[in-house]
């Protein structure tokens, strides 16, 4: 009669049903989302640099916001966009926005209009939304010559020349800084074809997973600051003293990260025990 193999604990662990893992993740995300515990968040120098740059601007100056993301990354980048727009409008800066990501155009329009309403800002005088044009690299380059080349009309079909804010705004020379919140390859285009050629101050807000690629440009001075993912957005919310979406999100992210680390450790413990036992059995044989 064949001997029945009794599974060891580590074999059970290695063969665990993925649905159990999913359940843990679900609980880890749900609990802090429902009952946030407000973990303290430290401000990083890269985020402080962005805040200081906006604080140093005079009312009426134009800040350009290329907001290039779509619903897939909105959870991370939307709180950042809200915080940045709120800061700009509260300082009475004028906002020139565009979205060079085809699936984010309406999302971005909605966000800008919502924040503008909070501060009673008037379209055309206080802010303008250019909308979308394909081929970001080309659009970035052509805007360096004249915003009217890629965008003769704004998102709503109005001629740029008829908008008061755009009357004396020809190209990047007329904006004080560009801050792109971006989850696309467009970040590289802004650095290479935009800042590289036209030398405007450029800041970046990106998904955390992408940000590690761009810290080198802060060190080289090509970017004046980076807001990285939800953590960066939470830091910015603290700096401006408004909003708490990202701050709440950091509780969720903290628990989720901790859970994934526990998973990695447990998986490795089971793996190492199994490997040691397998070696032992081989040596015995």
């Amino acid at each position, binding site marked *: 009669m064949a001997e029945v193999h009794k599974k060891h604990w580590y074999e059970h662990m290695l063969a665990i049903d*993925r649905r159990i893992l999913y359940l843990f993740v679900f609980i880890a*995300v749900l609990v802090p989302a429902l009952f946030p515990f407000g973990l303290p968040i430290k401000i990083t120098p890269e985020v402080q640099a962005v805040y200081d740059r906006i604080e140093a601007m005079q009312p009426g100056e134009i800040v350009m916001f290329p907001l290039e993301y779509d619903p897939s990354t909105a959870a991370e980048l939307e709180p950042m966009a809200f915080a940045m727009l709120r800061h700009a409008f509260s300082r009475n800066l004028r906002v020139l926005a565009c979205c060079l990501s085809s699936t984010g155009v*309406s999302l971005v329009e909605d966000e800008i209009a919502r924040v503008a309403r909070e501060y009673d800002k008037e379209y055309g005088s206080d802010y303008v939304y250019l909308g979308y044009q394909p081929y970001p690299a080309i659009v970035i380059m052509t805007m360096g010559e004249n915003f009217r080349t890629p965008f003769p009309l704004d998102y709503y079909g109005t001629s740029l020349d008829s908008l008061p804010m755009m009357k004396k705004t020809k190209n990047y020379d007329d904006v004080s800084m560009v801050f792109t919140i971006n989850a696309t390859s467009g970040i590289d285009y802004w650095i290479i074809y935009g800042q590289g050629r036209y030398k405007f101050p450029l800041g970046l807000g990106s998904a955390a997973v992408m940000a590690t690629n761009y810290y080198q440009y802060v060190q080289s001075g090509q970017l004046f600051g980076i807001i990285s993912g939800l953590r960066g957005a939470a830091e910015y919310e603290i700096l401006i003293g408004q909003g708490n979406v990202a701050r709440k999100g950091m509780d969720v992210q903290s628990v989720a990260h901790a859970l994934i680390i526990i*998973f990695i450790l447990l998986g490795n413990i089971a793996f190492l025990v199994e490997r040691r036992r397998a070696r032992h059995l081989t040596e015995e044989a």
Partner: protein
Amino acid sequence: MKREVPLIITMVTGLFLALQYYSPHRLSAHIYETLMDWLIIVGVFAIMLGILGLLRQHTDKLKTRERNWPYSIALLVGLFGMVILGFWGQGMGSPFVQAYFTVLNPVQATMFALLAFYIASAAYRSFRGRSVLASILLISAIIVMLGRVPLGEIIWPTVKIGSITIPGVTAISDWLLNVPNLAAKRAIYVGLGLGGAATALKVVLGIEAPHLRG
């Protein structure tokens, strides 16, 4: 002629754009602006070609009842549906924007949110310290994951004992990101830049002509 004319155009345009970067002359700027306009026009035609290609591929799939052909119906309905809705305007409250917020927005957000579950499962099953290098990667990943969230600073804070400072997980994570990570990234980017410049030079000089193939 079929080969020579495009090669000459490429060479003249490429050399002009390279040299134009260093010339502030008005004529040079004017030609540059005109070329930028042309780029947009060419780009629009490229989109049209792309849409035609997509249509052909998916109508062929439907005709031959290839595997997963019902997805092609979804794609075509989505494509034409959004184009048709676009004729009623794109402002807030328009059918186009309604479709965007009620279909595309939740679908994309859901797809991305599911990643959290897959990553957790993959981390448990596959992220193993099988070798020294894999173990270094594993430890670095854990430190960076912990260092990027506020919980990390609570679990493993920076400690000062007299004149000695023992860095916390955030400080170590920042060091990992700003020193080894940047060193590797810079090396890769410098390599990419040099490779890109060499390829561009080859294309401009006609040594390589990928745009003439097919």
